[in-house]
């Protein structure tokens, strides 16, 4: 098998086009509204400040700290959930480009991740600006080392998203399943609630990949240090994801066109 036949090669060689597709789609979603892409951010801010005071009281924690916790939690959740859920319709949605313009199907897994990154970046900056206006919130410093952390997650999500997009092209009832599972994960994952020592041992926390994806960048921002255990787990998942995605590509590359 040649190097140029691998999925990874196609990801890289189509990344420029993927960026253009991603940019066009981010703009496209809110093209006919006045606030445009700002809607992505507004919805985040509404959730943070809508839920924040009530939930801080329920959990009996400091409101300022809780604001930061759920803000980062929700931003990274949106990033992870958005990439996974949008992967379902990815190949199906772009089928005419794949069929008629012979654009490589790998392009759209990359564009999907880039799209999520663009939204994440905007949300991140906006939420920081909101924090700066609030005296009660001490926004933590951001180090540039957050970027390699997010890059690792982006790579993982691109490969996993590729697998999801292929499976949902083959089985059209897969996409509602993904949606339901992700809804479940929203409540199983410490996003609105925080981990206490007495629940840290729960298997559902220890083996929840969505938790790893959210906690790694969030923990790094809040504590200033990387959780090595989570990093290791994520690296292993990424590696497995790459191997499985490559195998899928190799096996189904010729057949997938008939699924569309």
């Amino acid at each position: 098998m040649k190097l140029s036949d691998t999925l990874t090669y196609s990801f890289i060689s189509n990344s420029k086009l993927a960026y253009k597709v991603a940019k066009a789609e981010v703009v496209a979603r809110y093209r006919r509204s006045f606030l445009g892409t700002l809607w992505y951010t507004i919805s985040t801010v509404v959730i943070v400040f809508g839920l924040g005071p009530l939930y801080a009281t329920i959990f009996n924690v400091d409101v300022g700290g809780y604001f930061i916790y759920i803000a980062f939690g929700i931003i990274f959740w949106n990033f992870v959930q958005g990439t996974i859920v949008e992967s379902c319709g990815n190949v199906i949605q772009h089928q005419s480009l794949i069929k008629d313009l012979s654009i490589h199907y790998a392009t759209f897994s990359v564009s999907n991740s880039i799209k999520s990154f663009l939204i994440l970046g905007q949300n991140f900056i906006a939420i920081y600006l909101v924090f700066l206006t609030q005296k009660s919130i001490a926004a933590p410093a951001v180090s540039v080392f957050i970027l390699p952390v997010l890059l690792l997650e982006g790579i993982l999500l691109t490969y996993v998203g590729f697998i999801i997009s292929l499976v949902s092209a083959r089985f059209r009832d897969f996409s509602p399943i993904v949606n339901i599972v992700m809804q479940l994960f929203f409540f199983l994952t410490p996003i609105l609630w925080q981990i206490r020592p007495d629940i840290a041992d729960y298997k559902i926390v220890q083996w929840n990949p969505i938790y790893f994806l959210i906690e790694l960048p969030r923990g790094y921002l809040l504590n200033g240090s990387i959780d090595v255990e989570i990093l290791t787990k994520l690296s292993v998942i990424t590696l497995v994801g790459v191997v499985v995605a490559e195998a899928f590509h190799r096996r189904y590359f010729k057949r997938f066109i008939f699924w569309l």
Partner: protein
Amino acid sequence: MSVCVSLDKVSLNYPIYGYGGDSLKLRLLRMLFPKASNLGARSVNVVKALREISFTLGPGDKLGLIGPNGSGKSTLLRVLNGTFPPSAGAVVVKGRVASMLNLNCGVDADLTGRQNIRQRLDYQGIKGSLRKNIEEEVIEFADIGNFIDLPVRMYSSGMLARLIFPLSTSVEPDIVLMDEWLAVGDANFQEKSQGRLKNFLAKSSILVIASHNHVMIESLCSKILTLEHGVSIDFREGKIEPKEAELERLQLSPGGAG
């Protein structure tokens, strides 16, 4: 590298998914209850779309594909443009391919005409000064005035065709794949577009066109392949030159997709 298209005993079995007992739910149920008989078919239905098709085209060859509906003409074109991988046999296509099978693909109704041009050029990987030239030339040919900066969803279908047609014929290809002869726009524009299309085809080296219009095929093509149920039943190698008179006549004949 010389331009060529070569098929050697190409067969295509077209599997039909998402039909009958084909869903994830039914698959899982079948795994759980292997003996149940009412859970749909286990195997995927396959249509034998093409069977052992062979031909070779070199520079200057114009191939016409004829045959009744469902005989495999469009499928064969999609094998040539690389969409469908053959189930058996070998396909060799050397040269830059312009596939004019679905002109409207990739058109975003919310983008303006100009943005759509740029987006299509992105998809085709066209860079640098050529982009600017093509953009200007397409806008000039389309001749739709200020509409070029309005969203495409505002366009009438004729206006959209006036934009898409020059865009699809803006890059100089070696090999052109066409499904039906194109006739777009009002009478005035049709004349203009037929001239452009002829020019476009003259620059290309190989043409493969599927059509029901036998007169057009005979006048345009040097080789004619007749398909029926995916089988090649006749391959004629006439040396019929495309006569100017016949081409003129085509302008008046009702064309296919537009």
